[in-house]
């Protein structure tokens, strides 16, 4: 079947075998996007986080059929390497990246937080990121990056 997704402001047609396929696989295998990442496939790590209509969701368990006409935003939709979004820039400035694999989830989750709470406390940042895993252990710098982004916003 044909499915049309709106991703980062562009419409994309996809041939889909299974409407229950989670969004992540459509974005990665179908659209060759690599902001959203596969980390667990079980809503445990947050690496796959994207926004649907501005809400952060775990795309690894979010069925395509629930997306409907929803607007999907991925990390690629925030900014580019040359023109990063302030939140992305804050991660660069704090040198918060180690391997970088968790960073998509950290930024997309933090973006959702800052959209609703522009000046969060450290506790609010940690609560928001509590379900996101980072195996490299760069947590403290991630928190600093989100604080910095909130400051410059």
């Amino acid at each position: 079947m044909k499915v049309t997704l709106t991703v980062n402001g562009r419409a994309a047609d996809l041939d889909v075998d299974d409407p229950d396929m989670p969004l992540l696989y459509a974005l990665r295998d179908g659209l060759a996007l690599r902001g959203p990442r596969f980390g667990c496939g079980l809503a445990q790590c947050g690496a796959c986080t994207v926004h649907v209509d501005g809400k952060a969701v775990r795309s690894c368990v979010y069925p395509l059929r629930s997306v409907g006409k929803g607007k999907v935003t991925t990390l690629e939709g925030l900014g580019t390497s040359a023109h990063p979004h302030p939140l992305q820039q804050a991660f660069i400035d704090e040198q918060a990246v180690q391997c970088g694999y968790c960073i998509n989830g950290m930024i997309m989750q933090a973006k959702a937080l800052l959209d609703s709470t522009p000046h969060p406390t450290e506790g609010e940042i940690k609560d928001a990121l509590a379900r996101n895993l980072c195996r490299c252990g760069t947590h403290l710098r991630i928190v600093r990056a989100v604080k910095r982004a909130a400051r410059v916003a």
Partner: protein
Amino acid sequence: MNSMDDSDVQVINVSRRAFLGAISAVGLVLVVGCSRRDTASADPPKYGADSMPHGWVDNPLAFVAIAADGTVTVVCHRSEMGQGVRTSLPMVVADELEADWRRVQVQQAPGDEQRFGNQDTDGSRSVRHFFAPMRRCGAAARTMLEQAAAAHWGVPSGEVTAVNHEVVHGPTNRRIGYGELAVAASHLKVPAGDTLRLKAPSQFRYIGKGEVRLVDGPDIVAGRGMYGIDTVLDDMLFAVVARPPVYGGKVGSYDAAAALKVPGVVKVVEIPGTPPPSEFQPLGGVAVIARNTWAAIQGRQALKITWQDGPNVVYDSKAYRATLEQAARTPGEVVRNQGDVPAAMARAARRIEAEYYIPHMAQTPMEPPAATARIVDGLCVIWTATQAPQATRDRVSKRLAMPSENVTVNVTLLGGGFGRKSKPDYVVEAALLSREMKGVPVKVTWTREDDVQHGYYHTVSVEHLEAGLDAAGKPVAWLHRSVAPSIRSIFGPDPRHEAPFERGMGLVNVPFGIANLRVENPAAEAHTRIGWYRSVSNIPHAFAIQSFVAELAAAAGRDPKDYLLELIGPAQRVDPRTMGDSWNYTESPERYPFDTGRLRRVIETVSREAGWGRKLPPGQGLGIAAHYSFVTYVAAVVQVAVSGKGELTIPRIDVALDCGPQVNPERVRTQIEGACVMGVSNALASEITFKAGRVEQSNFNDYQVARIDAAPREIRVHLIASDFDVPLGGVGEPGVPPIAPALCNAIFAATGKRIRQLPIRDQLAAHGSQPAANG
């Protein structure tokens, strides 16, 4: 394939080899050369990089290319997995080259050790082994540019100097850019290594400063990082594999009918396994190949497979622990012995005994293993996240019965490695499946369940310690029995004893001035694949020894820090061989003795910086531990708070580290910060257990690692300053081992409860906080 971004496809379709060729076609000068340092015949013993397969290469023709517009491309031949090596090593080349970092690009090398030297990104040795060769590489290229400029102006080469991407003629102040000199320079002879003029450290622009940012940072934060799991090629297929749940098991029979009905599934094939010892070859099983990863996963779920489990079906972690404990209470193979331990124990005023248990753990890098392979016209091209590009190439060529030069291994970014990606079994799977599909590109993705259940696990061990104390509480006898299955069991018949490299990770090389000291290693059989996990055997050895020292201090009524320093004794440089360590992280025992003065210094530094002895509220405590590993000295002070309900938080960790000179101090700090969190994960939560030969955990819900709420609230890293003439130590791993014992020592100080078994998990639940008598 409907790509959202056309440039993706382009990037992926160009092999590294073609890319290097392409730049040379547009006016690149220093093109790829070939240099080989053969380390096969080893008459005088070889150490460090010399001792590694294919040694080192410092030829600028292999590592540096300069385009007509002045863009400098530096090849990084080690794998980037978060340690920052794609920044640090090219930065060293750029510094000696007098290149302007803003005009430097980094190109990842494919697996080719003949050309680049050893590429095994493990053992905390990328910068340790390649700092000097990369300096020479940059200095040689700089010298060639200076010679070319001198020839261009017809002046003596002594009158010209390379400064920040151009060469200057001093007497006339004429200047010429690197881009203009590149072609002429490329025709000159590469100067011999011993004729090179290296910079004095005071002239370093980037080395030792920590101001150069990660080269991949901007791409990673924008979703442009290219990891092993990201490869997308035209007409590619996606596969997952159902592997035998028991190590050494195999497929009895299977029924693929239902799997083949899953929409999107293309084919189901059996992969023959490799009976133990299976080294880096696949476990075998049944592969489902599909049009996307999701269909492959659904197809796998629909498979009906009957497994033949084989003898390891008996593996049961509870029973095995009892076996290890029994072994640890019985004399075993003696691996270090000095004085007369039984006699000294008999005379001792007091005897103390403790046993520690450290379970299997899994590396669980955030990016699970994944690889893509394509075979066209007898050439196999791989894209993967690997710590061992040459080993990968060798294993693929062996399994496909293809000459090694017909296999290209393109190395992507690694979403974490921690030792898992040193073993390329997953890459061989991809190559076999591509061959099965007549060369069509196939990507194999390991789901998290695959990663947790079919890994190469950190060993499991029981560490049994006994000490005899004199009347003043000072140890006069020390007995340590370590029992753990060995990594060597994946390479050959199970030796059932720790290898010299495992014993050298803090078991035999205990730096204590105790006259009667004996270390034994009773036998233990492996029932699963045992593999390297960041810091390896240092984890159990440091946990046991540093916990036990604190236990002895408590028994003697002494301050644990003072007691530890006293045990280490006065500063001296000890030949590791005299401690039963013939391995010494492959480094020369003369250049890298065990320097107890440096160990003392990190302990003294961290206690001062952490405010050792400061007064804390009830339920809080400080713990200390120190450990030497990867020729680096580390000490940690952990502060814990334990609530009345037994909930643990970690307000702060201080770490002091002496790794010799720090080439990229900012990356050293981040590695230590990460090591603190990983050490906390090991201590608090992570455990792999087996029942009926099968791993009982499956994903991050039951294999747990520290999340942001469990991570320390504050980490302070104190780097010991060092001159550049001191030999470099490792950085990636040595931060981990002292964290768990320091944490448990802090728990003792806070509550009086001694943790002897990891992970801590709910061991504090029953306890709550009550101040300890000592500590």
